[in-house]
């Protein structure tokens, strides 16, 4: 057996982030308390360099390396860049918040960095094992982050719930993977795809396909947990609510991109020939998410919980995009479908960052601005940020011409192209229900008298970045086509149709 040194070049970003996290870990261990800023600065620098590295090494090539474990393609690159920027933004937003509550310790930033590494591994995984490792790396870091405010009972309870349910989901996923391995004899995603394709012609009995289908169901369940769709959504409101807002910000944003990548890798990359089966499953979950997410959000008085339910419904929309790819074995709509889904994921992350950013902006030491009532009369306190929040809410509700509208539109177009008109109608009706709670926020900001009259004091970096973030929502609504084209390009280059 001869050992060949693998080609590390395609994985340079991940290796860099991994190396830097170790460096930061060691540095901060030997650093005095007062120099804790270094950890933050280094983390941000690492993320920026990682994004730049990805940008400069980006090309349309698909390169598989590290014994089939790792794939470097355009979709992965685009998503990695977005993940980096999303985490950078989240850390900037959350910094003041964390400092006020005394948990901006080096570990906090390190965990964020480790979670980013996990996400990157997920995004570029070409193998069940690397995917699983990435997922666990992400999840374990997030458990830690949720529990970071360890003196808060709510925070620890949320972390506990997240951990237990996460462990369950991770078990389901692993079980599913093992069964797929049993049925196909492969762990690499491309190998699995090949094996299923070859076997499709020669399935003699039900038995091996049953094993495969069992595996598929368990994998979909694990995936659904990560996306947070009904009925695997129960953790979402509690964790979003319980975690410190700066951590909610991190859970609710970049991991959604990673989860989308995971869905693409597993379902489209590995199990594409079973599309008609997993599409039905996604359909059930999407409908459930749209209905439950939107309706339950109405009953919420807590803004973070409301956004959690709204996130569930958005993930339902994302699934709608994924499930419209294959129509009765015909793949003509696949590209449109996955493009719309990717576009939706990106749009959601941009909006989600901004919405939690506003909550953080309004919070101050000893006060969490997390109830809808806390937004009352925001227009009188700061008409600028009221306008920004209005942009976010309009965009989330899908009002033209913000990015959220085009995200919804592209998913709906894909559904209609796939002859799933009833799903499109349902999605529109549920969006209408959703418009109620988004517009309620706007109403409260503009028409109610302020309860909390304290001036908003936030660092200027948050103010500027948050404004830019919100304006990006409006601006991307004017130029949606470019982003859609980018998604399409990335998917074409990565999956060849």
């Amino acid at each position, binding site marked *: 057996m001869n050992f060949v040194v693998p080609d590390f070049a395609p994985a340079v970003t991940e290796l860099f982030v991994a190396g830097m996290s170790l460096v930061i870990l060691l540095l901060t261990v030997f650093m005095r308390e007062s120099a804790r800023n270094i950890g933050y600065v280094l983390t941000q620098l690492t993320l920026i360099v990682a994004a730049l590295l990805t940008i400069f090494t980006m090309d349309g090539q698909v390169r598989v390396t590290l014994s089939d474990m790792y794939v470097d393609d355009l979709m992965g690159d685009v998503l990695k860049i977005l993940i980096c920027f999303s985490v950078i933004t989240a850390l900037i937003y959350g910094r003041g918040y964390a400092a006020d509550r005394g948990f901006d310790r080096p570990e906090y930033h390190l965990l964020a960095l480790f979670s980013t590494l996990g996400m990157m591994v997920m995004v570029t995984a070409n193998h069940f094992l690397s995917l699983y490792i990435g997922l666990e790396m992400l999840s374990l870091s997030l458990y830690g982050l949720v529990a970071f405010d360890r003196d808060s009972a709510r925070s620890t309870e949320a972390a506990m719930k997240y951990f237990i349910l996460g462990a369950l989901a991770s078990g389901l996923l692993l079980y599913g993977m093992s069964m797929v391995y049993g049925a196909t004899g492969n762990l690499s995603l491309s190998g699995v795809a090949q094996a299923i394709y070859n076997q499709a012609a020669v399935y003699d009995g039900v038995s091996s396909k049953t094993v495969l289908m069992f595996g598929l169901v368990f994998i979909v369940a694990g995936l659904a947990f990560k996306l947070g769709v009904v009925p*695997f959504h129960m953790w979402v409101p509690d964790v979003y609510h319980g975690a410190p807002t700066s951590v909610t910000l991190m859970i609710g944003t970049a991991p959604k991109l990673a989860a989308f990548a995971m869905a693409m890798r597993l379902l489209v990359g590995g199990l594409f020939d079973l599309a008609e089966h997993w599409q039905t*499953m996604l359909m059930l979950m999407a409908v459930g998410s749209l209905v439950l997410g939107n309706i339950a959000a109405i009953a919420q008085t807590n803004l973070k919980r409301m956004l959690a339910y709204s996130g569930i419904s958005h993930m339902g929309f994302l699934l709608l995009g994924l499930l419209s790819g294959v129509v009765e074995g015909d793949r003509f709509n696949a590209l449109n479908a996955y493009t719309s889904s990717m576009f939706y994921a990106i749009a959601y992350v941009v909006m989600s960052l901004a919405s939690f950013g506003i909550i953080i902006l309004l919070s101050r030491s000893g006060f969490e601005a997390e109830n809808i009532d806390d937004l009352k009369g925001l227009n009188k306190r700061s008409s600028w940020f009221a306008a920004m929040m209005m942009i976010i809410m309009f965009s989330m509700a899908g009002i033209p011409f913000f990015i959220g509208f085009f995200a919804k539109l592209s998913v709906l177009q894909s559904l209609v192209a796939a002859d799933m008109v009833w799903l499109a109608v349902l999605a529109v009706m549920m969006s209408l229900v959703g418009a109620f709670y988004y517009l309620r926020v706007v109403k409260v900001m503009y028409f109610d008298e302020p309860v909390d009259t304290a001036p908003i004091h936030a660092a200027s970096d948050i103010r500027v970045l948050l404004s830019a973030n919100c304006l990006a929502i409006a601006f991307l609504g004017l130029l949606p086509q470019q982003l859609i084209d980018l998604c399409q390009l990335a998917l074409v280059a990565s999956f060849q149709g």
Partner: protein
Amino acid sequence: MSEMQNLYLVVPLAPLAGAILAGLFGKAIGRTGAHVATILGVAVALFASILIYQDVQAGNTFNGTVYTWATSGNLSLEVGFLIDELTVMMMLVVTFVSLMVHLYTIGYMQEDPGYQRFFSYISLFTFSMLMLVMSNNFLQLFFGWEAVGLVSYLLIGFWYTRPTAIFANMKAFLVNRVGDFGFLLGIGLVAAHTGSLDYAEVFAQADALSAKTIELFPGAPWLLISVICICLFIGAMGKSAQVPLHVWLPDSMEGPTPISALIHAATMVTAGIFMVARMSPLFELSETALSFVIVIGATTALFMGFLGIVQNDIKRVVAYSTLSQLGYMTVALGVSAYSAAVFHLMTHAFFKALLFLGAGSVIIGMHHDQDMRNMGGLWKYMKITWFTSLVGSLALIGFPFLSGFFSKDSIIEAVHFSTIPGAGYAYFCVIVGVFVTAFYSFRMYFLVFHGKERFGQAHHDHHGDHDDEEPSDDHHHGLAPGQKPHESPWVVTVPLILLAIPSVLIGFFTIEPMLFGDWFKRAIHVTASHDTIGQFAEHFHGAAAMAMHGFTTLPFFLAMAGVVLAWFFYLVKPEIPAAIMRTFKPLHTLLDNKYYFDKFNEVVFAGGSRLLGQGLWKGGDQGVIDGLIVNGTARTISLVAQASRLLQSGHIYMYAFSMIIGLCVLLSLWFSVV
């Protein structure tokens, strides 16, 4: 070419920048800052237009996309420019008149607290109008169309504390909605049947369109192209104030006078004319639509002229004159003399802007008294205004050698040659219209500038009987007894002089290239059988010859008869009109009530809508929608929402249980298939 493309962008964007500066930062930059910024913007646009004009003259036209907004299926929504002869002419007219009006406004609005706002609006208007004329697709056309409508609405209601102004701007807005409804239907039909909004692509498919029919009512097929053209023309009727959608234009005089000159005379109201000329490849294919256009235009041209005779408000006379002249242009469109229509559009823009600004200058001199019965003999006090108004009036009535003569006579000749159904009626209307035009124009001229000096008598007792016409007191001072009118400042008189020059000259120099040369060859399409201008061309032997011949034609005699009659009635024997008024009381009442269009609209349309609204509100909305559907749905949803809160109990075993249930459901999917 890319430098030219940048230049194209400069034209609309410079006024927009001015509008933004004056509008959003008006307080910061102050009054002077506001007018400097906006005037600079418009001047840059004018200058760029001149450069583009030279470029077009050298044969460089352009049709391309600047920015793709979105793509929906095969339909792409774009912003693009079509720069050809027609466009560049409109650009020159719009920017030139706009610049004059900007200058003039400095004097006219001097004391107004909304100074910056006003400048911002008129610059915004200039931007919108330029976007409209430079468009290469229906979407952008519609954008410009609606944007000029919006600015018009804002400016009619500029003095928003006056109830009459608010009423007038609502009216303008609502009446234009009716037109836009047709316009939008037309655009929709075009998009549905050609799959494109781009002019060039649509025109390329025009022949294919003309073969299609559409069933508006089951069993009655219509030519699709006729339906499209009539729908589009209904839009033009709203914007260009053609009967019966004209009712908003006289009321729009509630706005400040510079606006009446710019928007409600020279440019915006001609958008409809421009649009139809632009759509000539479509209109040419439908004789039905052309007939419709002729009849509407002819009716407007004559019957709105009559109304000018009975008005006492100086601005309203000019407003009705505008309506009548728009009717002339529409008639020209109907007889396929698109170039004559556009030619008249251009000359009219100059002399009508001149007349309006002159009227404005009179109003300044009279301290915002607009009633002609209080004027008379002003020529001694306002020499420049007097002379330029005389020039404008002569141009309007079509006195040979002046610009109006060339354009109006060309239209009359074109109508004469036309064989389209309705052309006979139109010929009668435009010929009689010449007499009427001359009569009301010189009635106004004599009443204002000549005869006994009637001002300074504090004549304010007419409020009672003319409530709906008179501006309310805050701007209606009039001269105090003994006070004399005075000439307006130079910012007012200079634009008058600058506008008087093209009013005299432009017709003479441009008639040959515009009507008979190949200036519009690429922009306007006329089928051979409709080519009235071509027939007219055979009788044309140069502008000077045409003007000389003009002294011996029927229109000239009619015009002179009108002038003489006006002179006799209002200077020599002022008691005659009063006697006639008494004798023909019913006729006068009819005219005074503007043929009862307003009454009719108020009772039938407004009343009907209110009744319908009431019914839908009480029965439909409050009963079914609110009661059953909205509140019913809301109650159901809130019940479900409460129930879902119960599920979210916080107990972790419930959460895990839900996951397991979900897994089982997903598994059962497979086994139910097997």
